[in-house]
């Protein structure tokens, strides 16, 4: 294979700098010792991270986001694992249509989903409640949970299952002792990716989040709409740090390239 020429490397360097610039700037400004937006030229300070504690709405929103992400990803898997096993193993009428339906939340603009959920939950009298938020997030993260579980279920070695069946295992025992452990890496990564999607979602959630159950992105968005100050950069930097931690865990567990390759088909 041919090497990159100097021009290509200059292009690459500028490209990478531009891709990283906004993220780096947010993290740098978060450490400013000044009372206004500025790069920390006179040393670093943690004052704006400490200020977060004085804004209980951000702290509360963080816990809402964390609980919502963890719960909705778990519930999504409860539905996605059996569905993935069915799609991976059986060829039945309507299989492709079902798979398309299950992946459809990827293709519907989130603003449309937000409106549909708001209308639905208002009509059934559940609007502004935490359970409504969970149900909505289950739908949105379902495709991510399904994809990774499906990949694991498809690539699984079926002979182990056959052996277990020949030894008399069946039903629940077969699933719990043989099938689930074999697809577990896919299930855990599916959970992690679903969690990140839920944790980051703004567009759909902004329609459903009532005061008291605002998620962190919604709280940040509403705050930014009024004014941009160093406080919101330190909150953003914390969010970036959490996502990075999840990313590294995901990379260790499963390989980030595989997760992202699965995501590449997401928009189709």
């Amino acid at each position, binding site marked *: 294979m*041919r090497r*990159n020429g100097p021009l290509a490397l200059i*292009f*690459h360097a500028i490209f990478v700098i*531009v*891709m990283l*610039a*906004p*993220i*780096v*700037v947010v993290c740098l*400004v978060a450490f400013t010792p000044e009372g206004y*937006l500025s790069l920390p030229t006179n040393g670093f300070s943690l004052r704006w991270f400490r200020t977060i504690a004085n804004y209980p709405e951000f702290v509360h929103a963080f816990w809402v986001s964390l609980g919502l992400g963890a719960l909705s990803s778990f519930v999504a898997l*409860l539905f*996605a694992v059996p*569905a993935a096993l*069915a*799609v*991976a*193993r*059986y060829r*039945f009428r309507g*299989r492709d249509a079902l*798979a*398309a*339906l*299950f992946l459809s*939340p990827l*293709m519907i*603009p*989130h*603003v*449309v989903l937000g*409106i*549909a*959920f708001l*209308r639905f939950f208002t009509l059934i009298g559940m609007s502004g409640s935490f359970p409504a938020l969970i149900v909505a997030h*289950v*739908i949105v993260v379902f495709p991510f949970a399904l*994809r990774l579980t499906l990949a694991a279920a498809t690539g699984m070695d*079926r002979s182990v299952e056959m052996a277990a069946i020949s030894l008399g295992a069946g039903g629940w025992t077969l699933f719990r002792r043989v099938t689930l452990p074999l697809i577990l890496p896919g299930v855990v990564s599916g959970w992690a990716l679903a969690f990140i999607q839920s944790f980051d979602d*703004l*567009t759909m959630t*902004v*329609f459903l989040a009532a005061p008291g159950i605002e998620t962190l*992105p919604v709280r*940040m*968005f509403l705050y*930014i*709409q009024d004014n*941009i100050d160093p406080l*919101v950069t330190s909150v*953003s930097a914390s969010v*970036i740090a959490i996502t*990075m931690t999840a*990313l590294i865990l995901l990379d260790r567990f499963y390989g*980030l390239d595989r997760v992202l*390759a699965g995501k590449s088909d997401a*928009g*189709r």
Partner: protein
Amino acid sequence: MSAVADTTPQGATEERSARAPWALTAPALMLFVGVLLIPLAMTVMLSFHDWGQYKGIEPVFILKNWREIATDLYYAEMFWRTFRIALLTTLITAVLGAPEACILNRMSGRWKSFFLLVILGPLLISVVARTLGWALLFGGNNGLVNKLLMSLGLIGTPLRFMFTETGMVVALAHVMMPFMVLSVWAALQRLDPQIENAALSLGAGSLTIIRRIIMPQIMPGVLSGAIIVFSLSASAFATPAIIGGRRLKVAATLAYDEFLNTLNWPLGAAVAILLLMALVLIVVGSNALIERRYAEAFR
């Protein structure tokens, strides 16, 4: 979607039980019908309802909202702006993302995976945080971007980025770039590097190789990336709302305004449904075009 169709069931012949797959998918199916399909149908219905400042939503069947969108030029202008921004964003990601994917592909193992992580990682970082970064970089007349461009002598007077379409396109292109790089990258993985060497050995120059060998082969990747980027940009919310401010509206931010500020839900629903239909038509249409074009090319 293709990944699902590719997963041919291995034990399909052994398992003839017709009920098992339906029993396994029934919970998810019921969930999707109950909480996705029914709400979507309700939203379509909502767009035909009447609304008044004092009477609220009236469940009747009228075409008022659709007529307003069709006749009021404000909406035509707003949709035109939405799709113009999406198109420009798509062009920028294609022109810059495709060469970058090629450069990445030529790197050696370690560097390749490192930079792939650097470029694709932002995909999973909150869009609010990424857009906030651009708001900081743009920041008024003495923002970092303007300082840099002026010190390089590229511009004489500071450009306005905040609350302009220029700023929206720049920030959106950054948010969407990983999707394009990923899509072209996937196309490159299916490509045989020996073809390039063959062209080289036959005396082709660098430009000829790019134009005659690389371009035609990565084109399907660029086009499928373009479809993803276009549909996500046209329905983007966070970036246009933060960079565009309250006055420069696109479809998603207008629908949000109708729902949560004006409280005219039927009109907001009509805008959202129109956006959904337009996107479905554009995506399905261009997919069909691409498939026909490349079915002929590979015959």
